[in-house]
């Protein structure tokens, strides 16, 4: 079964969407779109039983065989888990969007086309086994995310956020491409599986650390890790279904996927462990700390997403430690990867539902500002229940799935100082402390999010709309996710055995050879261990901080704007824009003569210096034919004409003299038996003289500028240089024949191969047809440019006249 084509189903569906939107305007387009993720979800579920036993599948088709580039879809535990997330959450989000986006007011076809494009891209990222096609899909997710964030493109903030996310993620993507190229050179293959197979040899290569850092840059920018997270809060300008889908459940997890996928290659390096764990924890703390500064519901969720992504990232880093400790060790590291994937699934469920609730609140009250909200509990009881479930899970409270993975996370961090490699036994003690503090803040912002919105005093006069419960259809998706949050707590091992263990097998192939060997059993109760006391501590301190929140929240405002990363980004963008503008305006003067001088000077310097460096300067008059009398006369006419052009006081004289020069060149072509050139030259001369005469009316009078001595001296130098260069090249080329002339080849093949008799024309249309094709393309572009310059100016003039006439 060629399941590689499944990836492209959403993209093919995207072609139908505009027609469905236009032709079937009675039905919301979303209902048709919903079929795609649902069908794909079912298709991918059929892989589940076999993948669960540790099997993997691969299917491919060639894309650019000459460059060894192909699409390879590789389905193992990890990519199947992600594919199910993408299609499963995708289906719920499309269902939600049907009620969120009004079919009469919104540009639905744009929205769903972008969304389907994203789905293809994301499936491609997680299934590609080929580095180049992985990169291709990776950038496609950036582009579709750009389009979706800028969906309401008339808003300034949307465009700003879209550009910011694009800038940062594409920067990371390019870095990652560099890492991929290094990897493919080191391993002499583009296949990730083959790279993993030769991981030990790669580690000794001198570029190993470079490729590691570059790949991590790609992962960190995509997964919004510190200091690149700044694009994610601004990406919240996207419609809420997009935020729930791309910016919490799937796209931002592409970086986590990448780290997980490359763990078998890079885990051997201490750089990898320190960077992934360290940056992950820093992001976890940073995100949770600044979440409390936000007043926008989606802003809080954005920072919380940043922080949770950091948590998963740090777990993946800790999971890489198991590469060094091995399977026999009883320490927790071998469970860390399991915990990472488990939390990834949990996060997708609770954060997805929370985003949808934030969207519902926005939709039904008209604002997302937490300062205006409050007391919605009695008005929106169902939304409140779902939000409560999601928030408590995020805070790590039982009986919700977040509690389980949070416990595993704490266990993992606590055992890090036990690890006695790479200075972890000394500095490692910091990690559990940071983890604990971050968890406290996570607890506080979870409470902040749900209780400030739904309890307290209702302020109806501040709300743009009268608040009421959302329609049932809108509540289905978050309710399903909320149900999963609770269900996973009670049956964690079902999820663990079917989804997570196969994924762990893909991340840690060096530990396990089959899923049965993974001896992990999730249980809610471990006894009174340190982890439990830490959780109790989190709850106590968290509640304390939440109650005193209004006292210390203003402290955030004291944080100076000048030191924030956003300020840095704005300055950087500003600097690059004005800087390049200033740089280019230094030499782009707007005068044609300046540009001609640049070009001619450049050509002269390059050519003459090449001739001297290569010692190609060689003149011999031995092989030349004698100069005939009429050739001399034509040459004299040529010179006289040229001097007339320069000396003439009126332009008309110059134009006519230029024509004379052109016709004498044509005569030369006739004498030297080049009828094609002569013909072309004659016609060109005629047309260009006519053109000059036309343009002549519009040219300004010869001005003083051209009479200044300095101006003329510079021009004379350039002109002299060009003349010398052309003469040297012509003479040297004639005097030395290093390679046999190509004309013999043309003479032989022109009739037999190309079926023609006129070599010049056959060169134009056949031998060097590419040149001609591009030349006519350039000609067409030039004519469009002239239309733009002249006709657009005309309309402007008319407009000015019209205004004056009024």
């Amino acid at each position, binding site marked *: 079964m060629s399941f590689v084509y499944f990836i492209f189903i959403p993209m093919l569906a995207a072609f139908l969407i505009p027609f469905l939107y236009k032709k079937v305007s009675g039905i919301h387009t979303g209902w048709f779109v919903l079929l795609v993720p649902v069908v794909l979800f079912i298709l991918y579920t059929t892989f589940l039983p076999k993948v669960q036993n540790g099997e993997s599948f691969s299917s491919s088709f060639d894309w650019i065989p000459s460059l060894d580039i192909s699409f390879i879809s590789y389905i193992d535990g990890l990519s199947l888990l992600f594919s199910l997330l993408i299609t499963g959450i995708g289906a719920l989000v499309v269902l939600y969007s049907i009620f969120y986006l009004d079919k009469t007011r919104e540009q639905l076809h744009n929205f769903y086309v972008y969304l389907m494009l994203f789905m293809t891209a994301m499936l491609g990222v997680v299934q590609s086994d080929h580095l180049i096609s992985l990169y291709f899909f990776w950038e496609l997710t950036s582009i579709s995310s750009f389009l979706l964030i800028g969906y309401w493109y008339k808003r300034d903030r949307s465009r700003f956020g879209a550009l910011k996310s694009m800038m940062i993620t594409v920067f990371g993507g390019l870095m990652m491409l560099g890492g991929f190229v290094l990897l493919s050179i080191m391993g002499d293959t583009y296949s990730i599986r083959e790279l993993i197979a030769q991981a030990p040899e790669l580690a000794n290569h001198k570029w190993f650390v470079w490729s590691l850092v570059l790949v991590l840059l790609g992962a960190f920018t995509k997964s919004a890790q510190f200091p690149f997270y700044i694009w994610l809060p601004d990406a919240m300008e996207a419609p809420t279904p997009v935020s729930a889908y791309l910016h919490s459940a799937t796209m931002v997890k592409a970086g986590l996927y990448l780290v997980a996928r490359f763990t078998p290659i890079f885990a051997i390096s201490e750089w990898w462990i320190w960077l992934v764990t360290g940056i992950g924890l820093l992001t976890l703390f940073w995100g949770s700390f600044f979440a409390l500064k936000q007043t926008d519901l989606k802003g809080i969720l954005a920072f919380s997403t940043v922080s949770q992504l950091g948590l998963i990232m740090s777990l993946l880093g800790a999971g890489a430690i198991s590469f060094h400790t091995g399977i026999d060790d009883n320490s927790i590291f071998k469970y860390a990867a399991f915990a990472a994937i488990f939390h990834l699934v949990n996060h997708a469920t609770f954060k997805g539902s929370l985003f949808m609730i934030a969207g519902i609140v926005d939709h039904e009250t008209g604002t997302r500002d937490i300062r205006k909200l409050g007391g919605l509990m009695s008005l929106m009881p169902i939304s409140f229940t779902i939000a409560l479930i999601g928030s408590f899970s995020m805070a790590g409270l039982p009986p919700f799935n977040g509690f389980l993975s949070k416990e595993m996370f704490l266990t993992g961090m606590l055992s890090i100082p036990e690890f006695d490699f790479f200075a972890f036994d000394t500095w490692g003690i910091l990690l559990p402390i940071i983890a604990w503090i971050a968890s406290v803040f996570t607890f506080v912002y979870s409470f902040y999010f749900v209780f400030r919105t739904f309890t307290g005093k209702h302020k109806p006069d501040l709300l743009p709309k009268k608040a009421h419960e959302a329609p049932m259809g809108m509540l289905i998706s978050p309710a399903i996710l909320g149900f999963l949050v609770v269900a996973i707590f009670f049956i964690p091992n079902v999820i663990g055995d079917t989804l997570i263990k196969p994924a762990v097998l893909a991340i840690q192939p060096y530990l396990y050879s089959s899923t049965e060997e993974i001896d992990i059993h999730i249980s809610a109760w471990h006894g009174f261990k340190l982890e439990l006391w830490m959780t109790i501590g989190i709850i106590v301190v968290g509640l304390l901080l939440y109650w005193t929140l209004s006292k210390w929240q203003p402290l955030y405002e004291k944080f100076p704007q000048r030191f924030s990363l956003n300020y840095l980004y704005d300055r950087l963008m500003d600097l690059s824009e004005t800087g390049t503008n200033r740089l280019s305006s230094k030499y782009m003067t707007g005068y044609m003569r300046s540009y001609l001088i640049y070009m001619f000077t450049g050509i002269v310097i390059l050519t003459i210096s090449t001739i001297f460096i290569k010692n190609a300067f060689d003149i011999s008059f031995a092989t030349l034919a004698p100069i005939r009398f009429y050739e001399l006369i034509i040459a004299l006419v040529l010179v006289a004409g040229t001097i007339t052009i320069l000396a003439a006081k009126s332009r008309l004289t110059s134009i006519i003299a230029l024509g004379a020069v052109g016709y004498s060149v044509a005569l030369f072509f006739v004498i030297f038996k080049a009828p094609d050139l002569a013909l072309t030259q004659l016609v060109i001369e005629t047309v260009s003289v006519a053109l000059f005469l036309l343009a002549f009316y519009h040219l300004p009078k010869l001005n003083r500028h051209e009479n200044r001595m300095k101006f003329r001296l510079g021009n004379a130098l350039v002109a002299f240089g060009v003349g010398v260069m052309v003469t040297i090249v012509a003479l040297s080329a004639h005097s030395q024949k290093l390679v046999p002339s190509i004309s013999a080849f043309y003479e032989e093949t022109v009739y037999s191969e190309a079926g023609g008799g006129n070599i010049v024309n056959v060169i*134009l249309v056949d031998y060097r047809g590419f040149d001609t*094709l591009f030349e006519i393309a350039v000609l067409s572009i030039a004519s469009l440019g002239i239309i733009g310059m002249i006709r657009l100016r005309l309309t402007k003039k008319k407009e000015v006249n019209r205004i004056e006439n009024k």
Partner: protein
Amino acid sequence: MKTNDVILQTTTKVVFFIIILFSIHIFFAGHYAPGGGFVGGLLTSSGIILLLLAFDLKTVSNMLPINYTVMTAIGLLISLGTAAASIVFNVPFFTHAFDYFMLPLLGKQSLHSAALFDLGVYLVVVGVTMTIIQSIGEDE
């Protein structure tokens, strides 16, 4: 450019057709004798320029109601299409094909995909030249 030159106008009416016929001849001759799409196109446009010199822009655009921008686009598409068509026959991009046929009246002639490509070049050259001249000529 308001002209009222009877001699020029009368001559032009005859010469124009000679130029156009010659340009068509040159275009078809191209593969075996001097000529080709580029020169042919330039000759055609020089014929139209002659019309422009004898009459004014408005009269000429009444005589030849051609949208030269569209002409350029069609030419470019023909050339690109000819080049790309080879992909369909599973040969590399830009592979030309030719063969000899017995045609009524004309006898044995070669038919060549390069001529189609050259037709594109011809159209682009006429289109571009006339676009430029028309735009500048109309601009007062």
